[in-house]
């Protein structure tokens, strides 16, 4: 047996150079650079009001991307988040408020429903062994059908005091939605990196077979991951409803690609097993920033969409390519 080595050789302290290779940190740097450059180049971009507005938009993407981060780290993908956002944005006005003057009860009901949808996704993936892409895509299509039947083509307005507050209040000048995002992000980071449950998620994504043989109940963990995906998409949906004042079919559609792009821009491996929500946060901010910059360019919506797609691809080529050595 070898001589006992010191703890510092066994667990060497991290160096500054490691930080420079940290994808989450790099994404933060990119966001900061873009903000500084755009702030100088375009008057008004760097104003507090504008940056606050960008963060408010990023909060919705960021919330959807929490669930997406969990699912992607666990080696799956959730294509139903957009539909779940719509379900909850349209669902709150449809649920009777049950005599609750604060409007909390319908929100809780909708969040429970969103989690339930996620749980069904997890059930299909874990027990029926349906590929996550197929399972969640089918779920999205199913939900869209239900929404069209229930809500039809018209927008529904919400008279919900709780959501109105979350969508419009600005304690100490910062939107309530951003507070919500900060709190939920903190919980997310703790769950991912400081609990055995979080470690199990990384394990499943990196090697499901070895994880199962190590005594991890992979099915329960998978179901929990997809339920979280449903819950955070639902949370994003109710926040969006609060900000928008009304919900309509299709309101959640842009958040599918946005959530996946935020996850990947933040350095989480699309192959699963590694990553962090700490990268998804700047990823989400980067996305809304790019969108804001494109709006400045005076172009038709078609060209804007083309520009947006190309920029995302370019960013991913620059920073997000998977190493092939697996």
């Amino acid at each position: 047996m070898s001589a006992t080595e010191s703890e510092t050789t066994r667990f060497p302290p991290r160096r500054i150079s490691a930080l420079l290779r940290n994808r989450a940190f790099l994404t933060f740097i990119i966001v900061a650079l873009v903000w500084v450059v755009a702030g100088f180049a375009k008057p008004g971009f760097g104003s507090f009001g504008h940056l606050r507005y960008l963060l408010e938009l990023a909060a919705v993407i960021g919330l959807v991307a929490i669930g997406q981060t969990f699912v992607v780290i666990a080696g799956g993908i959730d294509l139903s988040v957009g539909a779940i956002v719509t379900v909850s944005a349209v669902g709150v006005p449809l649920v009777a408020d049950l005599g609750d003057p604060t409007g909390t009860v319908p929100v809780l009901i909708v969040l429970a429903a969103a989690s339930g949808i996620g749980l069904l996704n997890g059930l299909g993936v874990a027990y029926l062994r349906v590929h996550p892409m197929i399972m969640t895509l089918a779920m999205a299509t199913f939900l869209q059908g239900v929404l069209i039947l229930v809500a039809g083509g018209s927008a529904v307005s919400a008279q919900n005091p709780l959501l109105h507050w979350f969508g419009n209040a600005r304690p100490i000048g910062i939107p309530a939605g951003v507070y919500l995002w900060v709190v939920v992000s903190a919980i997310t980071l703790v769950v991912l990196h400081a609990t055995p449950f979080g470690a199990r998620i990384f394990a499943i994504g990196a090697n499901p077979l070895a994880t199962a043989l190590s005594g991890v109940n992979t099915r329960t963990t998978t179901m929990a991951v997809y339920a979280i995906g449903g819950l955070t998409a639902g949370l994003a949906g109710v926040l969006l409803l609060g900000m928008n004042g009304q919900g309509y079919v299709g309101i959640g559609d842009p958040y599918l690609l946005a959530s996946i792009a935020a996850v990947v821009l933040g350095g989480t491996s699309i192959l699963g097993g590694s990553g962090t929500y700490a990268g998804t946060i700047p990823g989400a901010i980067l996305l809304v920033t790019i969108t804001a910059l494109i709006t400045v360019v005076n172009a038709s919506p078609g060209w804007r969409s083309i520009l947006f797609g190309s920029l995302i691809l370019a960013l991913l080529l620059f920073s997000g390519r998977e190493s092939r050595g697996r």
Partner: protein
Amino acid sequence: MPAPIIAARDVSKSFFGNPVLRDVSIALVPGRIHALLGENGAGKSTLINLLSGALPSDRGTIEIDGKAVAALTPAAARNAGIAVVQQELSLTSSLSIAENIGLGAYPRRYGFIDYGALARRAKAVCDMVGLDESLSRPVGDLPLGRRQMVEIAKALFREPRVLILDEPTSSLSAHEADTLTRLLVKLREAGTAVLYISHRLNEVMRLCDHVTVLKDGVVTADQSLAGTDADGLVRLMVGRDPGDLFPSWTATPETETIVSVEGFSSGPLKDIDLTIRRGEVLGIGGLVGQGQEDLLLGLYGALPASARRASFDGVPGIPASVPKANALGLAYVPADRKREGLHLIHTIAWNMMLPQFGRARGLSLRNRGKEKALALDLADHLGIKGDLTRQVQALSGGNQQKVALAKWMPSDPSILLLNDPTRGVDVETKREIYILLRRFASEGKAVVLSSSDTPELVHLCDRVAVMREGKLAATLDRDGLSEEAIVAAAMGAEEAAQAA
């Protein structure tokens, strides 16, 4: 004797510095069925790969029709009329029987595939091997034995002068094997050179004319089979100097049974009775793929299994899932550590903690300080050196295996199941693992060691259960334990002797 069609002269081959073949010569002569025998890992498959151009040799020459070939490629070997029926089937399951048979050599007309000619010629070879299925059936629909026949038909389609068969009968029914035997006799009369690899000694004794025996990459016999007995062949295959590799140990006196199963079935396993005792290392031997892995995984709750009666540490029944097996004190170290044992992209310390993560309930918080201390302790205990925040994939095979073992230590399992734990592990680590396993047993725990390395079974185990075709062929006690006895039981030498 006619001149050989293909011959290897003093060929050697090593992988990563491990010599697999040393100065091996073999000559395949037309009109002769040549048997190639050897234990698992003796170098048989490597020799086939050299003869078929799939691998280049490090030294020595391959001669075709008496002329040395500088660098034999698979294409050149095919053109010279050498066809190989591999052990792992190489068929495309979505294509039809006829398409598979002709694959890569489709008859053409005007640049298009001539399906008419393909069907005619495929029909002819199918008749030879006794395949009566419709030729348009996808191969994926066929049972394993039939697929093996398609594989043989595919080799015959090219009208080979040399036919190499790697364990062709391992998945064939008795009837199919008989058809194959008749076919080979016919090919011999027609002047084809056949190289026949089989672990069934009675088959070899009945069918073959000449035998080459490999042991540890060296030819130990190259002789006519006439006048040779089965026991003599077994002796030529085994026998190695155990040297200082194995620690000395004293057998634990007979102790209480910790696991007993009766009529245990799982996957290909049929009706197995097995007892595992505290304080012993129970070896599981046999040729590769006789159900050893199914046995371990079945006991571990990772594969569906049933038994007439089962008891694990006093608890009746077989554990229904891996977490339940862990709760009963079982732990499993898999054979393919990269795929089944470790998370290569995660750190050494993290890998060692995984079973703890699996056991934790609810949303408790991790205790980093405790994790660090535990990882340090395990690393020191098992001699894993250096930075524990490195990814596991940076470690050598031996050290990876130590991590795969280390992760179970904190759970303090009472029954340790190991599947070929020393495969691809350097000698020094092997010895460390052996010491560890014996220490485990001396602490009153039960160790079940499935191994393809026969000396390991002989020198480390209190008892060895030998498996053949999903059944327990024999259970050998310490007194009757020898490499000869294990190999004889694994290959069914007794039956061969009775048949002769």
